[in-house]
């Protein structure tokens, strides 16, 4: 177990190193670009050269990369050209807001998808199964911005029950939770269907296994068969899928935060991208990848815990 963990962590470090090199290569490889962006299209080549010199951009790539990496590792994430401040001074607040949004969504998705998936998968082909399956196909097929539009039309414009924007500012009379409902719902709708289908598929598969037959023919009630024999086996395969949703949630927050003007990490990334704010995008990209790779490790560990065949091999 420990050997496995250290291997995974080494792999994580390697992945992060390559990712950082890729990010660096994408944005800072060609020296002309950064200075040109800072100065705008109307600056003369001479001005660009001077700035290059000043920023040390004409030094060898490897030197600049090591310096950049060193800065990043020591927590110096650079200066945001969009927000006109240190990246460090904005990113953490935004992350907090996003954690609230994504965390709430995740907390809804996990139990709900397991319940729906198990309910659908325990009797394949039943009316309940068909309804849940088709329902989940439809919800995952509606892009977040579209479901945002649909839900806003109903609950904001037509019924007036909820706010159309979620600035997290309670001054306008909407409580924090009221502001969270729509963004969370949109994320849940989009993501839920996928996890439900994974859990269902796994459950369907488990229910055809001979050991389920053994359990039934032992005289266990259907409920006991599901709870004691099917559930744990059915959770092994989707476990990693569920954790991988964190990866999808990162994509989700960018869209949802744009739809509802939510002041989070995703909107910061988008705004920075639209205004070519390299430092913010770099920091956000590295952070997003770190989260996604760490979840993979957690997923592998959980998988090992759930599956005695691997635990004792």
């Amino acid at each position, binding site marked *: 177990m420990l050997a496995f963990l250290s291997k995974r962590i080494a792999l994580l470090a390697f992945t992060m190193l390559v990712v950082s090199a890729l990010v660096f290569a994408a944005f800072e490889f060609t020296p002309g670009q950064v200075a040109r962006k800072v100065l705008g299209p109307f600056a003369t080549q001479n001005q660009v050269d001077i700035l290059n010199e000043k920023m040390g951009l004409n030094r060898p790539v490897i030197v600049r990369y090591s310096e950049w990496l060193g800065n990043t590792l020591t927590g110096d994430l650079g200066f945001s050209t969009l927000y006109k401040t240190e990246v460090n001074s904005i990113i953490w607040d935004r992350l907090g807001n996003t954690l609230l949004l994504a965390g709430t969504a995740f907390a809804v998705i996990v139990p709900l998808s397991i319940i729906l998936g198990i309910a659908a998968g325990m009797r394949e082909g039943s009316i309940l199964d068909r309804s849940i399956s088709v329902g989940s196909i439809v919800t995952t097929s509606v892009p977040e911005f579209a479901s945002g539009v649909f839900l806003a039309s109903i609950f904001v414009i037509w019924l007036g029950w909820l706010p159309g924007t979620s600035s997290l500012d309670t001054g306008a009379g909407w409580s924090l939770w009221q502001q969270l409902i729509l963004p969370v719902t949109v994320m849940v709708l989009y993501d839920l269907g996928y996890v439900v289908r994974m859990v269902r598929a796994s459950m369907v598969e488990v229910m055809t296994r*001979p050991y389920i*037959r053994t359990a039934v*023919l032992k005289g*266990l009630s259907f409920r006991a068969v599901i709870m004691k024999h099917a559930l*744990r*086996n059915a959770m092994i395969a989707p476990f990693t899928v569920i954790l991988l949703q964190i990866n999808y949630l990162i994509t989700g927050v960018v869209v949802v935060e744009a739809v509802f003007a939510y002041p989070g990490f995703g909107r910061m990334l988008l705004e920075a991208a639209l205004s070519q704010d390299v430092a913010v995008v770099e920091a956000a990209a590295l952070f997003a990848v770190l989260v996604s790779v760490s979840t993979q490790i957690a997923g592998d560990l959980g998988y090992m815990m759930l599956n005695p065949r*691997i635990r004792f*091999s």
Partner: protein
Amino acid sequence: MSSNAAATLEPSVETRKAILELRNVSISYFVRAGELKVVPNISLTLYEGEALGLVGESGCGKSTVAFAIMKYLGGAGRITGGQILFEGRDMTKMSDEELRKLRGGRMAMVYQDPMSSLNPVIPVGKQLMEVPLIHSNVSEDEAYKRALQMLQEVNLPDPARIMTRYPHQLSGGQQQRVVIAMALMSEPSLLVMDEPTTGLDVTVEAAVLDLVAQLRQKHHSSIVFISHNLGTVVRICDRIGVMYAGELVEEGPIGEVFRDPRHPYTRGLLNCIPTLNADKRSRPLSAIPGQVPPILNRPPGCIFAPRCSDADGPRCTAAAIPTATYGGTGQHRVKCVRVAELPKHVRPTSTAVDTVANEFTTQPPILDLDHVKKTYHQAIGMFGGSGYDVHAVDDITLAARKSETLAIVGESGCGKSTLAKVLTGIELASGGKVTLAGKDIGNTAVEKRDSDTKRSIQMVFQNPESTLNPSHTIGYVMERAIKKLKQISGKEARVQVNDLLKTVNLPLEFAARKSRQLSGGQKQRVAIARALAGEPEMILADEPVSALDVSVQAAIINLLVEIQRKRGSTLLFISHDLSVVRYLADHVAVMYLGKVMEFGSVTDVFAPPYHPYTEALMSAVPIADPDVKQRRIILEGNIPSPQNRPKGCPFATRCPRKIGAICDDTPPPEQVSPAGHRIACHIPMAELATATQVVF
């Protein structure tokens, strides 16, 4: 101890109490194509303390009957008529709650494939304890005690430790013992066993069958024993029912049915099973022509009539056939209009064979294995730098001559399939020399072999379901093989496809079909044709018939014999089935844990002196004849795992004739008789020669 069937004393029919009675039960599966009447109408009775064997080939409905008895047919299956009376109560009318109380309580089941029948994430102890917790309303402690005691009863060593194990940590034989223990936990009055030993190695099978026989005496459960293997039924059962295409065609006491089978299908089955005491020279196997008709297209009258050599025109095909009682005991029932008029069935018996057809022994060998080794490195853990070596094939020296059949026999893990992979070049030998027709091929991967070598050695594989590419037509498969192996153009190759189809007795229109439209036997025929495409000198056959039903198996074996006679090719036949090997082989090598334990002509190997392992193997094979006597040798323990292979003789850990520490410490010498019979054992050959025949 011989088969216990004949010895069991039965009370007279009238006084016996029926435990289970099926009255005109019909079972259907409902699928898209409509209703499949898998079992149209079956009636049978099981008396207290009795064991009834239900036999038949795949698709005959025997497992469906087994699950119908448990009233568990899955979503698509339904009992559409009749009554299933268990201890006098009709199960078809019971509520789920009533069924729940019966299942695992008064009636229990043992399954095929014990590994998948046990829950992989729950320790076996917990799974056992569930039974008394549900049915006997006892405390956890009491349930634990009972489970422990039951594990002891099924002869599992160190039961307390087994309780904490997960299923994957047990061997196949141990798993099946656990399943049997689970079934007996609540002292059921009815035990349904569905192919309980299928998939187990023959020595393990023998031990499990002995256990079942022994527990039967103790627990007095009635048994319904489902099997495709007539031999296992003979070992366990008092009565036998033969099923064909959903119908019970013959039923009666074991002795009566085997000594005087009245239904042509039963006779056909008995004629196509190779037995340990017959070979290809003493009697041919006769296959049953044709195949089981599809469920939606069953003929009127007798279902077997289209394949029956005794069929008598409209008498057999006009109307449904009634079941008639035959003989004096009133227990032998046959579903055949000609039951009384057919002559007594004569089972061809073996006659002693003087010598092997050894006219070729003077020729130089075409295949020569010289100290061949294959070692795999097994990594430990998920990434594992460390690990250990597995000696899958360890120092094998063998030779095969032109036109001869060399059989390699052994249980799973003995290295026989690895050896085949080395010969085909899919794996490379780690040591020694493999010479084929004078060329060293052991260290040449198949990609690097020259085209003549590829042509000269071809293979027939084990699994009919994966031997043909489902995306390709049969014609394409053959054409491609001819083209590549004979190095000719596709146009020329296409012409030869028909010849090849004829060689394996397949209709020419099969060229346009895909594998899913073929039966298992037909697929194996195509596979044989594909191997023959380049007219190879050497054909490797790795368990080519083990996945087939016996009637089909006989036809394929006959085809192999015929082709070999006609073409003079050499056949290397790999099998776990001693009866088939006995039938087909000229020379036999017995392998255990990567080593050849015994090698010789087929007559030498199947007569004393035996290697103790060969002796045990022969005594374990279930024989479908209650009159054949077999010495019983029980092997203790499991085949050792590859990483802790014994230092001395590989068989030392299980050998019933072990003579002492020398067996554990020193690899045995190979003793060779003047006739070339080799035995690797510390016991002198002269002493081994004093053993009596295992089968007589």
